[in-house]
């Protein structure tokens, strides 16, 4: 059997996903990225293949994406994460209906991609210069509030009062503001929902730059956080689709592309 590997070397995590010939996801692995991300990537890949019981040779085509894509020499090809994300999202949301707008919040950036009827990327906007509205910000907030990142969602839905808006737009200053709010013994829940809504507002502004078309899709690590999803939905005003494994869609996209690339190569 031929297998195709998509590897997404992100700033905070390395995501690898393996797809079979008819492009459905066979397995995936997430491991921390770091300074020696190249070594980690190799290990993670070999671990994943061992877990899935796939022989090294069966991997016929590997596509790399993400920040470190150019440094991962073994990959047969590398593509930008925008296209990888687009393909991955469409693939992940196949049954859901063809999606037109993709929101992706990564570790250190957030993207909004708009697709045309055929699913090609028409327009996209990216915020990668500022940490606010990214996964990193959520980690910082969680660290300051001394709660786990995954607990953020529960706190969000437990908030009774009005969410406390974080006025400073920059993550670093937001940190001091949150500490200030804690100092005036505001409830953690209100702070968390306030943070979620401030992120949601930034994201919706970003998406509006590319134009919101129906069938919005949201992925990236923070998409696991239901509170944030609800905040964005409230801001947007309509439901958004979140895949089962929102973190690995970009790498899944790369794998799918690897499969297409292999098929087109073998044909000619």
């Amino acid at each position, binding site marked *: 059997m031929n297998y195709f590997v998509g590897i997404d070397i992100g700033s905070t995590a390395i995501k690898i996903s393996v797809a079979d010939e008819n492009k459905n996801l066979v397995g995936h692995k997430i491991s921390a990225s770091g300074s020696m991300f190249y070594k980690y990537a190799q290990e993670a890949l070999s671990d994943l293949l061992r877990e899935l019981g796939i022989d090294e040779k069966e991997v016929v085509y590997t596509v790399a994406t993400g920040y470190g894509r150019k440094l991962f020499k073994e990959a047969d090809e590398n593509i930008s994460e925008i296209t990888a994300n687009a393909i991955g999202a469409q693939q992940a949301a196949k049954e859901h209906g063809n999606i037109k707008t993709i929101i992706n919040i990564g570790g250190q950036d957030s993207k909004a991609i708009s697709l045309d009827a055929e699913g090609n990327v028409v327009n996209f906007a990216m915020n990668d210069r500022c940490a606010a509205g990214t996964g990193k910000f959520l980690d910082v907030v969680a660290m300051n509030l001394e709660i786990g990142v995954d607990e953020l969602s529960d706190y969000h*839905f437990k908030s009774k009062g009005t969410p*406390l*808006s974080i*006025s400073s737009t920059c993550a670093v200053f937001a940190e001091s503001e949150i500490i200030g709010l804690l100092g005036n013994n*505001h409830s953690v829940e209100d702070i968390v929902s306030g943070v979620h*809504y401030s992120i949601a507002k930034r994201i919706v502004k970003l998406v509006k730059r590319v134009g919101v078309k129906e069938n919005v899709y949201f992925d990236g690590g923070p998409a696991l956080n239901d509170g944030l999803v609800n905040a964005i939905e409230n801001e947007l005003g*309509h439901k958004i689709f*979140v895949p089962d494994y929102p973190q690995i869609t970009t790498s899944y996209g790369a794998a799918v592309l690897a499969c297409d690339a292999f098929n087109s190569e073998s044909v000619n």
Partner: protein
Amino acid sequence: MHTEHTIESPHERQNRHKAMEAIHVINALKEDFKSPIKSMEYFYTLFERVYCNHEPLHEGKSKIGTMCIQIPSEIIYALDGVPIRLCNGFYTDDEIGGDLMPQKSCPLVKATVGLFASDNFSDKPDITFSPTTCDQKTKAGAIIESFGHTIIDVGFPRTKESEASRAYWRESVKGFAVELSKFQGKKLTRTNLENSIKKVGYAQSLYHKLTEFRKHQAVPILGVDMFLVTNAFFFDKIDDWIRAVENLVAELEQRSSEGVHVAGKASPRIVYTGSPPIFPNYKIPLIIEQSDAIIVADETCSSNRMFNDMVAVDEWNLYDMIDSISDKYLKACTCPIFTQNDDRIRRIIQLVRSYSGDGVIYQAFAGCQVYEMEQRSVLAAMEREGIPILYIESDYSPSQQGQLTTRVEAFVESLKNRKRMKK
């Protein structure tokens, strides 16, 4: 898996946005300053109830919306309606209204139009009266009407010196009274008008008591708190407001006898003038008082101008009461819409003198031409009088907070060392 959650309707989302704006300011008021005042709690909770929880205050009463303070509230109370001043300080509504108004127009009017467009009232006015004061508010009436609200225009003259303009305004007020009494189905009588004049007058006299404390060296109350108190008068029940302000006066009496000073010893005393700071747009006042200055007096229509002049009646009969009311709203008003407005300059100078102010901060909304156009004459007058003045242009958006803070702090520090040099 992604559990099911309801999504907010646009209305709810707008409420939440406004709530977040409001809570942010309320918390700032509550927490950023030293020696908070106990009896201010009523106002904080009031604003939280109305603007965060969107709790209607006037169930069952007929609510009369007024686009500007120039609509006589005495007549509204007399016909037992409830006046709701519709000046609006929310950035959320400002954005909504922004699409319906020209780009560079007054944020306050945009917010009011946004409020009407999104029909996002906790106390929805049954009818709205709009005096033809400044251009944008006058034209906004038509836009608001297109959203299915009944707006009745009340002609307001642009000059106040000539006999004709005063007669014109008196007729307008009478016309307004007839319209309102037809709408309410009640008659304006001597007794109910007299009672309402005295009640509003008493409320104003309480304001004067409050300002009395701000003249001392040790100022017991912050400028922003004062803005909040006067802002509450826009929509609160007048009796609750009066009781709350009475407690506030009592507490301030006690505080000022103890010499409590809410600002630093060297913090300069600021006279605030210009576009009205409407809750939650206390951006500039908060910046001023956070950068260690104290607003001791103001010349804005949301506070001093609304409370300063009381109705003086010579003969307590209907004909004279109505004329006194209309004169009160026209003659003493220092609104910049008037052609000549040296009254305002004299008032500012008088405020600086009687409240021993160190400097004047003139804040104009970006897009409010009348205040922007008067800026030159006020600055020139202050120059002549040797009173330092800072002109700031701002709008409702929370952005450029930083630049504004630095400019205000620079001005405040210049006042401080002027004071030190003088010693």
